[in-house]
């Protein structure tokens, strides 16, 4: 089996698993929580290969995000240097279990996912790479639901103000 076939099969299996988890969650809101919590610490290899926000969110969480004004994304309006863009997030949402950053125009949109155990505050700062001007989205998983905030960050190439 070639690598390409292997990864395509894996993706199908993962998508299938995501769909089953969604259906399961719809019927039994609490039944699957322990299994999901255990899977939370594993590196989400497939999600990091996705090329669109929607695919990354689906692969990572298997559910859609709703915009929330309780999620505060702090990103520069203009990033002079796309290689080092400081981005941070904080939220007043309770029971946050993870935080993820996406850059829509990057070759792979998922940048980082942070697992937030109980007792850790839902505030994270990091520095990311941006290929070009793009929407930056932060996802906050709280109480089993997914919330988001987005902001466009302009990336200047060579400092010419474009």
């Amino acid at each position, binding site marked *: 089996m070639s690598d390409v076939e292997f990864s395509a099969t894996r993706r199908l299996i993962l998508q299938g698993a995501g769909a089953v988890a969604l259906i399961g969650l719809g019927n039994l809101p609490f039944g699957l929580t322990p299994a999901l919590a255990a899977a939370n610490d594993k590196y989400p290899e497939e999600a990091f290969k996705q090329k669109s926000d929607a695919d990354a969110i689906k692969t990572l969480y298997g559910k859609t995000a709703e915009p929330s004004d309780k999620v505060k994304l702090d990103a520069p309006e203009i990033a002079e240097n796309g290689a080092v863009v400081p981005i941070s997030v904080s939220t007043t949402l309770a029971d946050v279990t993870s935080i993820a950053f996406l850059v829509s125009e990057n*070759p792979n949109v998922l940048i980082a996912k942070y*697992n937030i*155990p109980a007792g*850790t505050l839902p505030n994270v700062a*990091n520095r990311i790479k941006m290929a070009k001007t793009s929407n930056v989205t932060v996802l906050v998983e709280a109480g089993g639901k997914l919330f988001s905030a987005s902001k466009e960050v302009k990336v200047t190439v060579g400092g010419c103000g474009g």
Partner: protein
Amino acid sequence: MASTIRVRATSSGETTEVQALIQHPMDSGFVKNAKGETIPPHFIQQLTFEHDGKNVFIADWGGGISKDPYVKFTFKGGKKGDELKISWVDNKGATDTTTAKIQ
């Protein structure tokens, strides 16, 4: 060899703020070198912070994190003098581990 990980952890009494700076190329696999050859992906995949036998923060990273990555977070608890254990593993299987005292 000196550790690739530099950590500053400061306790305010109730919470501990942790800042980490790691030396790593974080090659995404999408950048070409001067000869036009693609630089293969080489990036940290998982970075774990442990306090008192419990993970307090786990970072899963892709190639989109900047070179020599920086991260900041805060957790409840942690006293001055407590140890924080930090370790990373990259996509080539390399690892590094260090400990830092909370100040």
